[in-house]
């Protein structure tokens, strides 16, 4: 990892010369802007940053970011990014993807990149719908969602991206929303800081095909009552007028009102390194009445695939020396035919 003092970068250095072509009002604009700001603060040279995407609205992202960028094929961004990172581990690799791209057509690559703990950042824009193909349901759509391909309501049970990532052995799971630029910026920086695969789910609004899908817990006016911003070592409390908190009752997480019966001291303290706690937190998505969690849900250190590739090569070279091709050609049984 080469870290350079890049204080001379501003957000503008990461804006490409391409005209941004998302629908007016799309949540992607806010995410792009926040990530461009974060890029200027990464501590990485611009030429060492690679942005890889698949197919879908969110996957147009690399065109708008002034770094090396690869817009690939549907679902395969994580696989191509894995090749980039394994071949050159010095690069800062970012995968920009969506709920369709990563969780249906690219589901296999998504779980395996997390399992390998490849040192890269995966930003999943979750708008619970297929936008670019013009409005079919996605693997995160709520059951019963009426879309072009489900006029009587979808029958599928949705994935929770965070829970899926946790099940796939992710070492960093975070969540944010397109309505909170400051939080996006902060989480991107923390994700880059984390060594291993950082998975960030961003709740993103699709104004055309799924407008308002996240509004309860994403819009300013309502989100305080429907979401908790997790902070390491701090109690899990939330709420606008009425303060509420999250407690552990036997093995179940419960929301309680703070006041006479419960106080802040009864609430769970967030510890992103606690795997048992994380297993409960990622399971909250299944219950629509529970608040949504923002911030870093889980972050632990574990062995990193690309580090091990580098180390294994060094180890073999230390033992065998650099490869000698002529020696290889003459290894094993050879015989000479004389003139």
């Amino acid at each position, binding site marked *: 990892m080469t870290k350079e003092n890049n204080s001379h970068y501003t957000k503008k250095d990461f804006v490409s010369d*391409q005209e941004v072509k998302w629908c007016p009002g799309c949540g992607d604009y806010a995410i792009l802007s926040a990530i461009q700001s974060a890029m200027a603060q990464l501590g990485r040279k611009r030429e060492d940053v690679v942005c890889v995407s698949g197919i879908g609205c969110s996957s147009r992202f690399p065109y708008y970011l002034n770094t090396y960028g690869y817009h690939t094929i549907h679902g395969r961004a994580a696989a191509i990014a894995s*090749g980039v990172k394994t071949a050159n581990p010095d*690069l800062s690799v970012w995968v920009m993807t969506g709920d369709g791209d990563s969780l249906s057509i690219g589901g296999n690559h998504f779980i395996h990149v997390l399992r390998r703990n490849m040192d890269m950042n995966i930003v999943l824009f979750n708008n619970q719908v297929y936008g670019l193909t013009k409005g079919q349901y996605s693997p995160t759509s709520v059951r019963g969602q009426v879309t072009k391909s489900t006029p009587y309501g979808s029958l599928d049970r949705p994935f929770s991206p965070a829970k899926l990532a946790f099940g796939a052995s992710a070492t960093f799971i975070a969540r944010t929303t397109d309505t909170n630029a400051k939080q996006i910026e902060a989480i991107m920086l923390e994700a880059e800081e984390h060594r291993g695969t950082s998975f960030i789910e961003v709740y993103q609004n699709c104004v055309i095909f799924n407008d308002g899908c996240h509004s309860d817990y994403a819009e300013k006016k309502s989100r305080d009552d429907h979401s908790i911003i997790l902070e390491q070592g701090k109690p899990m409390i939330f709420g606008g007028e009425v303060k509420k908190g999250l407690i552990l009752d036997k093995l179940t997480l419960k929301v309680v009102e703070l006041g006479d019966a419960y106080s802040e001291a009864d609430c769970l303290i967030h510890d992103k390194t606690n795997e048992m706690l994380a297993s409960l937190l990622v399971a909250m998505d299944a219950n629509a009445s529970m608040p949504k969690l923002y911030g870093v849900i889980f972050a632990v250190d574990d062995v990193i695939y690309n580090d091990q590739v580098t180390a294994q*090569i060094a180890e073999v070279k230390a033992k065998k020396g650099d490869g000698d091709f002529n020696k290889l050609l003459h290894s094993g049984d050879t015989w*000479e035919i004389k003139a």
Partner: protein
Amino acid sequence: MATLTEVESVVIRFSGDSGDGMQLTGTQFSNTSAIMGNDIATFPDYPAEIRAPQGTVAGVSGFQLHFGSREIFTPGDEADMLVAFNPAALKVNLKDLKKGGTILLNLDAFTDKKIEKAGYESNPLEDGQLDGYQLIEVPVDSQTAEALKDIDLDTKSKKRCKNFYALGMTYFFYHREMETTLDWIEKKFSDKPELLKANQTAMKAGANFAETLETIVSTYKVSKAKIEPGVYRQINGNTSTAWGFIRAAQAANLPLFLGSYPITPASDILHELSKYKEFDVKTFQAEDEIAGICTAIGAGLTGSLAITTTSGPGMALKGEAIGLAISYETPLVIVNVQRGGPSTGLPTKTEQSDLYQALYGRNGDSPLIIVAASRPNDCFHMAYEASRLALEHMTPVILLSDGYVANGTEPWKIPDVDTLYASIKHKMLDPETVDKENWSWITRDPKTLVRDWAIPGMEGLEHRIGGLEKDFDTGNISYDPANHQKMCETRQKKVENAANNIPLQEIEGDESGDLLVISWGGTYGSVEMAVRALQKEGQKISLIHLRYIHPMPKNVGDLIKNFKKVIVPELNMGQMVHVINAKFACNATAYNKVEGLPFKISELKEAFSNALKEAQND
């Protein structure tokens, strides 16, 4: 009294249950023969199931080898000797034994139960169906046990030495020296002294026992072959392929990256390359075929010599990603070790039926370079060539191999790589020399149409590439109709231009005549031997064997013109023949076989003779 006969060449087939060690036995015999100065060719023939039910025909594993005092190009049509470890092996292989050939069989395995399990209705040793063959019936199991009775080892381990007992016998019949194999056993079992002793003892006991049969069985001598002077080694096609890539990466001064998903019969390339970390080789066993090629594309974009290896079904899955690499104009080598299809087909059997897939198996007009290896030791050269063309032309290249070439072993004169395989000039930019203001990632060499290769880490050359159509000048997304036409033409022309960067087609035989045989890929050995045999008989027949499939060498059309008739033998239902006819309108006829097996020289001779008659009568 038995005789010692001097013969030009011998074909032996070892055959038994897939757990009987037949591949090992055959390999030992062929290594010894090569070291003794014979030319050789081998063909392993094993079941798709790792351990199919014992004693059944499904579980039969075979290894055929052909050794001689002349040039050997194929493992041979028919065996002179069949070594059959059980009734199933006899049942499966008898049809490939020469009439009057020798059968060495393990009598202990011919019990009623095993005979029935093999699917025989009556005992083949008694019902007369082996009349006319020379039978050597030996109770191999019990004689091995007897020979090893003083060795402190369990019965099961002793029984497993029976292949060396039989090998010892064959060494006596064919006057093979035992040292190479005894040394191999010594190394292999250096930490298991009892097993070492058991296997060596079994082998010697087998040879000694064979000597006692001398009065009734003939022995054969095969003299050294006249072979070009040099240092030789044995190599199989997949190893040869892997080494070709390692050398190409060195010649290009780039790291080597392989992204691959295991699939028969290509996995051995992954196994082989995973050994060579000291050569900066990175191998990535991906989660699926698509990730195999996608990781390779990522590595290629990042400045590695990028490879992916697979077989037909995997090729089908990689199709979209190959299109992406074409659209990116990024270097990538895709190896397809062909097997019988369609679908899962015949995983362990050979075929060359993926030519159409290589040429046309993608959406859109998506041209790329295709090359094919002609024999096991040619894989090294063609893997190097595939890499060279990918790097010099910034394009994906498909290297077609096949199960026969991949698993076949033959001697290889070790090349002088420091002069013959020394340098590949890839297109990677030196950022210092680039006029960054006026540069775009799609900047092309006006003559070859090959684009520059700029990789992450190069300051000031940051750029975005996608699978969407690109503007010819800026490389930005473009939906302009005229631009798409221009880009399709450019991609096509760029690939066609590679014809200026490959050798002209060689012709074997006269440059004009009655019949021209056009073959390609792994059929070279049998086609060459059939053509040569007919040439010796005075027939006006010549051969062009294609290794550069797309684009083809520029002189192919001219070579075809001087023959009355063209025939294209292929292990498929007829693919290259249509390509040839579409390109050259030469009314070529086809000779096809899809039995999962290589061509026999005899069947090709017959087909070519018939075609010659037609040509002469026209």
